[in-house]
């Protein structure tokens, strides 16, 4: 921890803004009423929530993943790249991560994550359907997270400095409260609602086929 380093200080402030922003948005979500559901469930909602997070997420269980294998793979790689960057960012707060033994092992995930991000930006511009759906935030968020992965990639390979990596991370964190990135947190709420809705009804997990 180097409090004399300005980019370190900017990063700490950005962390407070970014994480605080997510907390505020989650608190706003929790401020909405959630009436109790007294209808007797067919299947325990617990079982269906577990299913929603596990088997229900497997690509062959989702028509969309079956139809768009590349998009699915791209999404997985992009998210792996982001999570690897977060781990690296955490490490870099305490030690110079690139000096750590084996940190270069992160580079394939980061490299692929970057390529996935870049491809996603291009597809968002080129695909007519995605153009119809896009908001400016979709580009800003995507470009920022792609840049953080790129800077992390450069950092572990000693191409760019830790300060560049922190700069990119700070940009993402400062923008985060106004972006779609909090879907990382909303995801859990949506999956719970999804699991409970289809689980209580006995649709998921699917009952044993009678024929």
């Amino acid at each position, binding site marked *: 921890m180097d409090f004399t380093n300005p980019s370190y200080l900017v990063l700490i402030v950005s962390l407070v803004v970014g994480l605080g922003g997510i907390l505020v*948005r989650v608190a706003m*979500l*929790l*401020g*909405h*009423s*959630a*009436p*109790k*559901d*007294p*209808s*007797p469930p*067919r299947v325990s909602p617990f079982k269906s929530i577990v299913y*929603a997070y596990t088997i229900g*997420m497997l690509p062959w269980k*989702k*028509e*969309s*993943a079956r*139809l*768009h294998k590349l*998009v*699915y793979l791209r*999404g997985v790689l992009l998210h792996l790249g982001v999570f690897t960057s977060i781990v690296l960012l955490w490490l870099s707060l305490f030690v110079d991560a690139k000096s750590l033994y084996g940190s270069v092992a992160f580079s394939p995930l980061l490299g692929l994550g970057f390529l996935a991000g870049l491809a996603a930006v291009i597809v968002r511009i080129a*695909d*007519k*359907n*995605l*153009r*119809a*759906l*896009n*908001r400016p935030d*979709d580009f800003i968020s995507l470009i920022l997270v792609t840049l953080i992965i790129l800077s992390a990639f450069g950092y572990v390979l000693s191409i760019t400095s830790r300060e560049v990596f922190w700069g990119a991370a700070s940009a993402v964190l400062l923008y985060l409260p106004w972006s*779609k990135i*909090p*879907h990382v947190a*909303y*995801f859990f*709420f*949506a*999956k719970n*609602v*999804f*699991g409970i*809705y*289809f689980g*209580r*009804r*006995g*649709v*998921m997990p*699917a*009952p*044993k*086929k*009678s*024929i």
Partner: protein
Amino acid sequence: MTPETQIKVPEDYKKKLPRDVAIALETCVRCGLCTESCHYYKSNPKSDFIPAYRAEVFRRILRKKDYSEKSLGAMSDIAFSNCTLCRRCVMTCPLGVDTGLLMREARGLAVASGTAPEILVQLADTAISRGEDIEIFREMFLENIKALEEEVRQLTGDPQAVIPVDKKGADILFVALSGAHSIIPPSILFHYAKANWTLSFFEASNYGVLIGDKDRAKRIVQRIVDEAKRLGVKEIVVGECGHAYNTLRWEAPKWFDGGFPFRVRSIIEVMAHLIQEGRLPLDKSANPEPVIYHDACNLTRNGGLLEEPRIVLRAAVKDYREMSPNRDDSYCCGGGGGIIAVPEWDSKRMEAGKPKAEQIKATGAKVVIVACDNCRIQINDLNEHYKLGINIGGITETVVKAILKAVKGS
């Protein structure tokens, strides 16, 4: 009013939305993976028919607080005529965003702002007023039932067969739709099952739900709940109506403190149970042709009746086949969500029903069993429009044919 006229929507409208709606509003990342899941898009691949696109129209209105007549009118048109609330898109979304729920909420906003299709609002109001003064139509209803009872006696050959109405102490309150086809087959079924039942004065359908107006929907359900309590029944059995089953079984208990003091089942569940217990005499040769079953979205994906219809049909027909995809993956027929009641949307719903017509054609079956009245009308229309050459039947009617063949040989 001009298109620019601002409609008064409460300042805290967005804040007051229930949490599941707020989650669906916030979570979408606009990845477009839900695109092909929608039967509208499948039959006409234009961007306006992407599920997330429709939801974005609603989101934009809330984000910008753009409550002009023009914007709300456009939203209303999308929510009512471009989405049947089938929720197939929800199953395919990697995040589980409930676009169907958002469209129902958008419908509610359209009703509150006076931009919803009037005919649907009127249908809901008519049902409410019927419940308010039951005496006005009581005599006429009882007369009609007497005539139907005569038919039941002829069909069963039993002069003692009855259609009980207003019977205190009955176990089952059966809620049908309007029309003999919704009352006669269940009456015969209950007769042979020796059920202690009574017919409701009210119809099962609930336009309040279809227009996304919880207040109206609750008032329509209230009539049936009061009747069930007054008669002291153990359960409500809902006839062949998808949205009525979904409403009474899954949605309405949330509107009544503590839920219902009785069970709610579909007639399909009742038949499956009776068949599994061996309590129905059935002769499959009454239904010799290849038969397929259309999974109505409100019974299957939103109702949970995935296997029960199959248990029933396998026992009642000789050659049961499946459409593909089926069960919770099944395509909407294009006639759900109340679209069927608005004649201006007829060509739209024929177009949206194309994937279902193609599914039916691919099986080569000549009989399609449909356990929802809305879907039945739609598939009848698809039959004509796409020249499918099929016969359409109800599931209770199919079972009753097999019962009558087993009991009477005809």
